[in-house]
């Protein structure tokens, strides 16, 4: 890219040297990959990652002391940043085009293309980018100006985020725990389905679930597909707008019971209990065929049979299974220091206990709101606070960026 053809490797280094170095790092990474396989994050688990972090910061500090040296100028320069970002771009493109192996499995590709985040070239370029970004930030901090706040927020924010995310990846643990209602559990499954015991215990007091009002559909009994074929029309049952038309069939909703239980005479009544399910009384007409009938439709569940309405030789009116609207677990968490935390866990409303985050994960989908257990995901990430610090600094920097645009160019033109 550098048009003026200065000789190779003569200081100051620019684009061609930067790309050559990053290319060389990738080549060494490929050789390591071919000879010893994936990078094992376990080797940089705490406290090794802390030592590495401190060593890196010392190295950056020493380099900064000699900030007039060609080496520092190069490490803190734009050409190397561009070369590093290009290296990361190359490997993330490979990742985006190759189906990645699950985190608990080994890949098939000798070059590590299906396990990119664990492949040596990626790890090496990632680390070199950290070093590069650290020097860039350090150089600008040496020459501190308040007007550069957006630069600091963006670069320092990204730096904190990449350090905490990269080094933190080695300490991150994810587990799944299944707890029966009324029981206390401390055993979890890891990604390889091994059973482990945790220092935390969770008691499930109550599992509560709400479901959306279901839909009505007309299906072809021979195939089970909703009509019209290829573009199925379903009617979201609506108790205020009570009429609908699906492919020429007029549907009039006469009664809807969200928590219904069937009586002996094939009618339904409202009884809120774990085995209840939605039921609707509808009147269906088709002027073309002269069809006119009223009846109950019910989607059924583990406790009750479904009920459909036969419309002709092939078609039936059916009710879909209701979709989950909200599921919530009332839990108590016990920690080793004998503290107890109470929480109502929902999707999007996790509980934070120290370095742990506890998530509502799943439940017995067949039993729905009668589920006898609730599943939680437990994520251990001691670097999380720093990740948030990085995210919010970078976010503030991005908002300044979108607000100020290219301030420097305008200052120059003004």
């Amino acid at each position, binding site marked *: 890219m550098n048009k003026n053809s200065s000789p190779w490797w003569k200081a100051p280094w620019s684009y061609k040297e930067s790309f050559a170095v990053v290319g060389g790092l990738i080549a060494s990474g490929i050789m390591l990959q071919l000879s010893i396989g994936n990078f094992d994050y376990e080797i940089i688990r705490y406290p090794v990652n802390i030592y590495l972090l401190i060593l890196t910061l010392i190295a950056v500090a020493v380099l900064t002391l000699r900030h007039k040296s060609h080496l520092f100028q190069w490490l803190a320069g734009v050409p190397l940043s561009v070369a590093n970002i290009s290296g990361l771009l190359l490997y993330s493109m490979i990742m985006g085009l190759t189906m990645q192996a699950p985190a608990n499995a080994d890949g098939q590709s000798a070059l590590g293309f299906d396990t990119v985040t664990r492949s040596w070239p990626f790890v090496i370029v990632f680390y070199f980018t950290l070093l590069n970004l650290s020097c860039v930030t350090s150089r600008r901090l040496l020459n501190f100006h308040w007007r550069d706040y957006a630069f600091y927020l963006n670069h320092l924010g990204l730096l904190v985020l990449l350090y905490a*995310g990269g080094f933190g990846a080695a300490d991150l643990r994810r587990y799944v725990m299944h707890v029966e209602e009324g029981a206390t559990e401390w055993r979890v499954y890891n990604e390889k389905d091994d059973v482990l015991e945790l220092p935390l215990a969770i008691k499930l007091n109550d599992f509560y679930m709400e479901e959306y009002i279901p839909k009505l559909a007309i299906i072809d009994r021979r195939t089970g597909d909703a009509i019209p074929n290829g573009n199925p029309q379903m009617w979201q049952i609506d108790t205020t707008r009570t009429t609908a038309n699906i492919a020429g069939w007029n549907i009039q909703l006469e009664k809807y019971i969200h928590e219904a239980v069937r009586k002996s005479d094939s009618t339904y009544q409202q009884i809120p209990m774990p085995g209840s399910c939605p039921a609707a009384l509808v009147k269906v007409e088709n002027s073309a065929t002269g069809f006119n009938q009223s009846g109950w439709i019910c989607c059924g569940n583990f406790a009750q049979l479904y009920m459909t309405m036969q419309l002709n030789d092939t078609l039936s009116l059916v009710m879909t299974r209701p979709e989950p609207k909200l599921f919530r677990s009332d839990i108590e968490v016990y920690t080793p220091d004998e503290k107890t935390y109470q929480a109502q866990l929902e999707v999007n409303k996790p509980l934070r206990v120290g370095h742990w985050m506890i998530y509502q994960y799943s439940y017995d989908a067949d039993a729905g709101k009668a589920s006898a257990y609730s599943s939680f995901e437990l994520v251990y990430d001691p670097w999380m606070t720093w990740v948030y610090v990085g995210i919010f600094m970078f976010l503030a920097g991005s908002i300044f960026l979108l607000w100020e645009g290219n301030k420097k160019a305008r200052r120059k033109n003004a």
Partner: protein
Amino acid sequence: MNISWDHFTAFAIPVLISWMLAIITLFATKKRWLNKIFTLAGIVGFATFIVLLWISLDRPPMRTMGETRLWYTFFLSTIGFVMYAKWKYSWIQAFSLVMASVFIFINIFKPEIHSKNLMPALQSIWFVPHVTAYILSYSFLSAAAISAVILLWQYKKQKETATLEAFTDNLVYVGFGLLMTGLLIGAIWAKEAWGHYWSWDPKETWAFVTGASYLIYIHVRLRESRPKKFTLWLIIFSFIFLMITWKGVAYLPSAQGSVHVYSQ
């Protein structure tokens, strides 16, 4: 007064008319205050509907696709208004009002999807800002790609290009700021909903590729001696990555099981 979706059209039509007038005044007259009055009148009218619906539902209207669209309309028109006040680009005002109106039209003509339910993971305060930031970012970065093509053509004709160059550059800055805002809001949301802020989901991977590509542009052009044609091609390539992230990911074999690919 109990407001429901039945009253939507009554609110929507005056809003649409005032935004149409806003777009016409934008291009037909030099009186900027006229445009501002029409735009604001629409925004206030629309916000009134949201507030009244919120009161009558007794919960924030964020649970169905139709309700989510209300916020797109509101934020697109409002942020478009602010962006126009800041940057004086008429097209962003026109674009955001047209997009805001499109969401109104969907709500009017596809009433059955008013009640398309949101799965619990999507019921998050981060959902709407995440998508809104992206819609606006895409508009800026599309405009940047178009002006990059125009610039390449003008170079060929050896025309004076300095103004358009500065303009293109600014579009990328603003668009990239919005892109990162959408991405980081997505990361915060992902931590709350899926347990981790970054999972290298295929859409996330391509968002990373796109971000890296625009970053290369932003850094390469810092040097005065930059090769101009090359930097313009960087904008165009970045935009292709953006399109892959937006639409292409669903078709990639690597995207099986992505949390961003919703089958209907």
